[in-house]
């Protein structure tokens, strides 16, 4: 295995971990409500920007990061309460449009409040690179991959071992039946949005020392997370993680071997092929239409 190959693989897995977190955000909300949340990318942006802002106020770093996760989670909760619940029509187009509206509001508000400049954060454990079979690995990449893995494990526990997680799963299987056994499905919606937002924000904080952040990075990150979710099969948690890693790795190899200026186009070319040839994604459920 050549050093270059390994190098591309490492950077692909790092950025892929962030796409996987974004894709998990899409998946959680989709399962709870059938909504594709086009504001998911803005939560990633919010995490990074708020971490920079709170750290800039002189708060201790752990507190700044905690706030930068909690505030977006609150924004996610408010978004569900103010934009998703009040919409009575069940039309896909209407819900997609409402989440696009919410993303515009969040992005515009951050632009007005924090400005258009790019910001970075210092790496969590220094900038001394590690060497792995000749390839260079930044400690921050380990943070990204490690924390993402922890989140995936925590989510698995939540959905399989806790009552609240099971309530969310029950709602995604059959909303009416869930209501009948006493699950508050509005509450499930709020929890899902808050969780997705918090997870996205955490991803945004982790990646900021590597890629920088600014008010407009959410669009691309969110869309790539969506690509990852569709690639994995909408609604599948495993699919979201695998999809995220695949998108990240293919993007890194495409940028390295083909053309770095077309890096951003690669996930979208990929998704067109996926939709043409395996429209339900890798791990998507087979569904039948109800007439």
């Amino acid at each position, binding site marked *: 295995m050549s050093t270059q190959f390994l190098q591309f693989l490492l950077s692909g897995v790092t950025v892929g971990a962030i796409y996987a977190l974004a894709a998990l955000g899409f998946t959680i909300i989709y399962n709870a409500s059938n909504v594709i949340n086009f504001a998911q990318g803005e939560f990633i942006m919010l995490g990074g920007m708020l971490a920079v802002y709170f750290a800039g106020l002189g708060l201790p770093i752990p507190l700044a990061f905690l706030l930068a996760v909690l505030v977006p989670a609150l924004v996610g909760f408010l978004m569900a309460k103010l934009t998703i619940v009040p919409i009575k029509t069940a039309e896909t187009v209407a819900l997609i449009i*409402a989440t696009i509206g919410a*993303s515009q509001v969040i992005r515009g508000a951050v*632009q007005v409040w924090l400005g258009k400049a790019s910001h970075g954060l210092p790496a969590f454990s220094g900038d001394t690179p590690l060497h792995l079979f000749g390839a260079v690995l930044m400690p921050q990449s380990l943070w990204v991959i490690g924390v993402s893995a922890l989140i995936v494990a925590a989510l698995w526990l939540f959905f399989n071992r806790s009552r609240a997680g099971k309530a969310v799963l029950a709602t995604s299987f059959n909303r009416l039946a869930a209501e009948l056994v006493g699950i508050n499905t509005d509450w499930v919606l709020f929890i899902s949005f808050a969780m997705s937002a918090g997870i996205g924000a955490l991803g945004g904080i982790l990646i900021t020392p590597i890629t920088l952040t600014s008010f407009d990075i959410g669009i691309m990150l969110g869309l790539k997370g969506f*690509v990852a979710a569709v690639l994995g099969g909408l609604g599948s948690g495993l699919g979201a993680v695998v999809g995220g890693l695949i998108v990240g790795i293919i993007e890194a190899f495409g940028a390295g071997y083909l053309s770095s200026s077309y890096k951003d186009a690669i996930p979208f070319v990929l*998704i067109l092929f996926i*939709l043409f040839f395996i*429209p339900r994604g890798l791990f998507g459920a087979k569904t039948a239409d109800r007439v």
Partner: protein
Amino acid sequence: MRQNYIGVYVVALAAGVLFFLLPNSFYMDLAIRTGINAIIVLGLNLLIGFAGQISMGHAGFIGIGAFASAILPTHFGWHPLAAMIAGCAAAGALAALLARPIFRLRGHYLAMATLGLGIIINIVLRNEVRFTGGPDGMPVPSFGLFGVDIDSDRSWYWIVSALLVVSVWASLNIINSPFGRALRALHGSEMAAQVVGVNVVRYKVAIFVMSAVFASIMGSITAHYVGFVSPGIADFGHSIELITMVVVGGMASVAGSVVGAVLLTALPQVLATFEGWETIAFGAILILCMIFMPRGLVPTLAARFGAFRK
């Protein structure tokens, strides 16, 4: 049926009267850009409002038309009219190619595919610096026909007005045709439409291609009118603006398309001094529309006052 065409006369009359009321070139420019947006939105509304299919990459097709009109005459010496037609053909062919497999899918997947296409087009325009000038864009030669160059704002005003009137007429015609009825049927229930013999995929492809061609033509017109074009014309934000116009004016409403274009082309002028607020305003309008009048301004008002239904 005849009364349905009142809209055509209203638009024609409004365009004629407005010409003499515009106080200066700033408002003339605004009026022309409103007209261009209105035509694109009419096409997009046929797709979103009547067929119930969402395109999140429509600005990509505008970009194809605009850059065909910029690149082919500049680099290859084509006649602007030939370039415009080539742009239409390219946009239409791309739409058809994409639509066939995609329209077998539904909802989210179509949004994904059109969004992906739009982003790819935008990235290509930004990167092929040799032909497109890259992110900075490139100048567009003026449009001439039969040896006469169209270069004054006044001429463009009349051209866009005429195109708008024709588009309103064509849209009403399409809606009231068997084709339009088929579209509405498949919006209501695809399965039911299929059962009564509507070839669902073929109709969806047809309307998607048609709206892509509308967008491409107006991209060409914009490029020639402004005399300059940059990849921003094809970006995601522009696609969202167009969807906002459809939604605010009223899905499945011809009058709504025009009203939506008028309101939302004027709005940024009001907010232009507050950077960022424009984005917030557009977002808030989208959300409020979906909550309080999901059918849009014109159909909601029409239902309330019972007048000029449809």
